[in-house]
């Protein structure tokens, strides 16, 4: 990877924005942060102390809702997305780990890949722990990992450190006059990351929880008690950047007598009927089992061979938005207290 010094963000935005639609996290009137279209005049939120938009960039690749195909009465016609080149500017390491995870999960999915291939990822190193995040514990931050972004930005005393982290990234900054970064930038960056990781609040409940979960020592009654608290609101699965379940559904079109479109939309394994069959048989009938399985999917070693990491990237969103008080911190504390 080669690194440069960038004086100001607008110049990079202008350059990248020449042939791409830019998106960046931006504040709206109530102070909250959302992924919205950006241009050189925008003020992307690139604070050292990160505030994660509640909606992760997941929807840029795994669409919340999209048409898969249409049937015109005789043929089933695939409806791939029309994608313009785009760039996501200022993605935090946790969300980038989740994108990498989903790149692997959706590797055969043409809809996901069409959007993914058209996207340049500009990552942003976090220089302070965010509220509720625990990325160091799950090897998902605070700095952007190699191979997960095309460009990486980091606040620097002289403006910004800009790392060309992939061929695509290198190409994207061709033509931008950038002095090289100091020669020891890599060593400095590594040391810097250790310092920041050490400042994260205690996460022993996460480590312990993961251990007990994998050793099968969590009592069924613990899961059942937490299951009682689950309202199946689907907030966790909507906002979790590594969640990938979807439902398919259809509606008629006017194209032919029996013309229709099949769509898919984000689904949630916490819904009671997620696994319910037409016969009524429902392996997921009990809330405790559903809750348990969600955490198994996020923290079980059974998945690491395929993905190289846990599903959980330590972003902390689920804790923030769960009305039932069973987000990641609550669950892991409960598990490690019981065991």
């Amino acid at each position, binding site marked *: 990877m080669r690194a440069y010094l960038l004086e100001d963000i607008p110049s990079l935005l202008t350059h990248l924005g020449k042939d791409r639609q830019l998106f960046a996290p931006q504040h709206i009137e109530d102070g909250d942060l959302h992924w919205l279209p950006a241009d050189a005049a925008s003020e992307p939120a690139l604070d050292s102390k990160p505030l994660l938009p509640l909606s992760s960039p997941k929807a840029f690749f795994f669409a919340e809702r999209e048409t898969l195909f249409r049937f015109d009465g005789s043929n089933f016609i695939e409806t791939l997305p029309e994608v313009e080149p785009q760039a996501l500017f200022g993605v935090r390491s946790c969300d980038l780990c989740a994108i990498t995870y989903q790149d692997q999960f959706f590797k055969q999915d043409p809809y996901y890949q069409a959007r993914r291939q058209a996207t340049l990822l500009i990552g942003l190193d976090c220089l302070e722990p965010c509220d509720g995040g625990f990325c160091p514990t799950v090897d998902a931050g605070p700095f952007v990992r190699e191979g997960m972004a095309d460009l990486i930005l980091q606040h620097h005393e002289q403006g910004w450190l800009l790392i060309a982290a992939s061929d695509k990234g290198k190409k994207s900054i061709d033509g931008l006059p950038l002095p090289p970064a100091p020669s020891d930038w890599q060593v400095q960056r590594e040391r810097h990351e250790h310092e920041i990781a050490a400042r994260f609040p205690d996460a022993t409940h996460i480590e312990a929880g993961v251990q007990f979960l994998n050793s099968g020592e969590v009592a069924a009654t613990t*899961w059942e008690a937490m299951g009682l608290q689950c309202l199946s609101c689907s907030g966790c699965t909507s906002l979790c950047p590594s969640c990938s379940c979807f439902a398919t559904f259809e509606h008629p079109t006017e194209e032919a007598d029996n013309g229709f479109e099949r769509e898919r939309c984000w689904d949630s394994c916490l819904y009671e009927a997620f696994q319910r069959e037409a016969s009524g048989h429902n392996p997921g009938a009990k809330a405790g089992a559903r809750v348990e399985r969600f955490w198994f*999917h996020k923290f079980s070693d*059974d998945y690491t061979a395929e993905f190289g990491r846990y599903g959980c990237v330590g972003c902390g969103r689920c804790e923030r938005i769960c009305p039932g008080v069973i987000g990641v911190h609550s669950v892991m504390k409960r598990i490690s207290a019981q065991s």
Partner: protein
Amino acid sequence: MNGLLIPQPIRIAELYEDGEDSRHFTFEPVGDTSIQQAKPGQFFNLTVPGHGEAAFTYLSLPDSDGRCSALIRKVGDLTSALFERSKGDLLGYRGPFGQGIWPLDQLKGKRVLVLAGGCGLAPLASIIEALLADNETQLGLIYGSRDPANQNLERERAAWHKQLPIIEAFDLPAAGTKYIGTPLNHIDAILAQLGGEPEAVLTCGPEVMMNAAADLFIKRGLSGDNIWLALERRMHCGVGLCGHCYLGSSYVCVDGPVYSWNELTRLRGTTTAT
């Protein structure tokens, strides 16, 4: 070749009633549609335009003309809509899916008991046919239904009666029926006809029944590696993406739908809550 989630057009070639609320359908490709070969135990997804898509096990596997069949029971919206369709009507097809890991090689030459309950007979038909083709394999079938009207695969069973010992059991007593109860009530009887303890058991039917059957044979000393269950799950994509058919860290549509009892127990054990 169509995209991953895109059906190909097929049509209903034939259909006939085959048990209460059950119908035997034969499907054939339309136009450019190419239907790949499949292995016993695999399944396909059928789209009924406007009513969704559901998974069905092959009864007869696709032949060289791409024709295949399934025994389908009317239980919900999609199957009700399918039952209103006639010969020649256009449907959608995606498949084959699953591993089809009926372990044919492991079963050949052995003494095998096939245990079917309710609509679980159809998914076993292709393996029964495959094993019947091997002279060394000793095969026996025990099949439970609610009552004679509820039985499926009348034609297939008529042929099979000449080729292997079959016991048909009924939950409800009906005139002339000898074996009352579930298949598990008559194990000794079928094994007597089969000629001894089975070296492998293949089962399909309500999950409760399959679990009980596995327990029974474990107690009789059979290894959990030689007991095979064909599972049913809610499925949408058939390719391990939508998540609905999860079973521990496995997706039934990809790794299954047939699992050995040992593997199934391991996967089920990842969830302890009830």
